[in-house]
């Protein structure tokens, strides 16, 4: 499925990072950078509030299976706390953090796809993926 493929690609980059990076917070930092980019790019199209609502809902849904993830905001359109996500991922072993993050990303993308269609999600995320390609490069100081 196309909408999954973009989430899979981001997950693959994070997994690659986990194997190659010598910097311990590389995965949480890169994941947070992705989410900030998603927030920015997708927010330009559907509005930042809408992105935050989707993110918070995705967190709450994924947290049932991965309790280590932070709680979403109680208000559906409350601001997205990506720092809390970074901290939660950092507190877990790489493998667990990767799995939890992948589940969160898939939930988010699938939820968005159910609203605007997988094709359009792919189009919007393709610009995010290309703009964040460089983020996947390990040991980038600016992520710290």
């Amino acid at each position, binding site marked *: 499925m196309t909408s999954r493929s973009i989430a899979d690609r981001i997950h693959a980059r994070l997994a690659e990072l986990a194997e190659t990076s010598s910097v311990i917070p590389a995965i949480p930092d890169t994941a947070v950078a992705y989410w900030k980019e998603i927030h920015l790019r997708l*927010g330009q199209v*559907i*509005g*930042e509030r809408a992105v935050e609502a989707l993110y918070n809902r995705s967190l709450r849904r994924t947290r049932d299976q991965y309790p280590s993830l932070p709680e979403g905001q109680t208000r559906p359109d409350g601001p997205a706390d990506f720092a809390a996500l970074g901290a939660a991922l950092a507190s877990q072993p790489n493998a667990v953090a990767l799995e939890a993050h992948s589940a969160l990303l898939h939930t988010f993308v699938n939820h968005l796809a159910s*609203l605007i*269609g997988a*094709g*359009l999600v792919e189009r919007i995320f393709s610009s995010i993926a290309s703009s964040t390609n460089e983020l996947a490069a390990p040991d980038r100081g600016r992520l710290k």
Partner: protein
Amino acid sequence: MTIPKATIRRLSTGVSGLDEVLGGGLPEFSFNLIGGSPGSGKTTLAHQIMFALASAERPALYFTVLGEPPLKMLRYQQQFDFFDHERVNQCVHFLYLADRLGDGGLDSVLTAVFEAVARVKPALVFVDSFRSVTTGRHDASGADLQQFIQQLSVMMSNWEATTFLIGEYASQDETNPVFTVADGLIWLYQTSQGNSVVRKIDVRKMRGQRTVPGLHTFRITSEGISVFAPPRVLETEPPKRARTTPRARVAMGNAILDEMLGGGLPEGYSLLVAGPSGAGKSILAAAFLAEGARLGETAVIALFEQRATFARGAFIAGLIESGQVGVVDTGAADLSVDEVAGLLIAEVKRLNASRVVIDSLSGFELALAPTFSADFRESLSRLIVALARTGATVLMTSEMEDRYDELRFSPYGSAFMTDAIVILRYIEVESRLKRVLAVVKVRGSAHSDELRLFDIDEHGIQIGASMPEHEGLLGGRPRRVTDVAALSDVRGRDVANPVEHL
């Protein structure tokens, strides 16, 4: 040496019928307002135009503000065939502005628009909904609303962007400064009457070109919006010059009827076949189509009552199946005359058809939205004129109750609109229900004045003899004249009953 004037290129909107109403398309770099009430189709129209025009060389930028939430807008607009998600973020860009509006009002919005336009360099800009940008903001931001609009207009023109502001304006709100600044004002309406909903579009202003004034119906389907321009606009061929030679005659599929018409129906004429239910109108129409097919001609039939494949026998069904007869099967609700005219003329042109059948005008009137019933006669006249301009010969059937206390030859006062009229009637003869037909009119041509009996059998209409020994046929109770000479002799004398009732 002549210095050339500025030429305004016109952009094809991709909305069927709209270019004609606009007077040839949208002027490039124009500053337009699309207005109307919620649900009238403004956002759909804007998207359809955007996807029709956007390309790599002509990118489009769609600003969403506080109108329909973008998630919903994107969700629903995708249901239309024109929405091509592959072009999103390639040549179609969406940008949400509401957050900027909350931060700093009009100035902030203007800055955001400037930044985005400078980055994307769009040739097409849409602001949806513009009213939400402006409502109550002009004082708070310190920028006068009119100044804001003028700045936006000037900026877009300088950027050579064709711009559309989409807003929920009341049509009476003509003091709004945007109306003055805009080059084009396109208004959409939606009216309800009972269960009928009719959509109309009005191009109230389009600088530099001659639009078609008035309200024009449109329909929204999965393909998007289709505007039904008046038939005369669709016809681009110049009117034919006055004829110096007689028209060729069109065979009706019945030799005796051809003879009664003076040698067939003159080519390009419109014929009204009027009569009561079951009298044989549709059978006559089927014979007309079949004869055309036999001669290798193509035809179009517009059906409002019977199903083509069931009612006209296997032969006509076969012609439809083979494509020799095109069908305009108007199952859609709330039709307008212009919509039907558009469909018919398009089909006539597609098939290069020489014959058209409308079966029947009575069903056609019933299929129209109630709002069009009031001016049905005028609309029908436009339809007939438009069909005549295609050069096709037209046969229309019409239900007309037999009335034996008055002589009527057509319903709707349509006798003067058509070139020829044939009436069918029931009469009582020897306690049997018989049918008669007569040619009432063939414009500019001699024709029979006989009332002829006819029967219907498996081969169609069989026209028989006239009934010279009877009179009072149209009164429903014919009388046999016992002795014509005696009748002539006794006239003028006080003879109460020179004929005997049958």
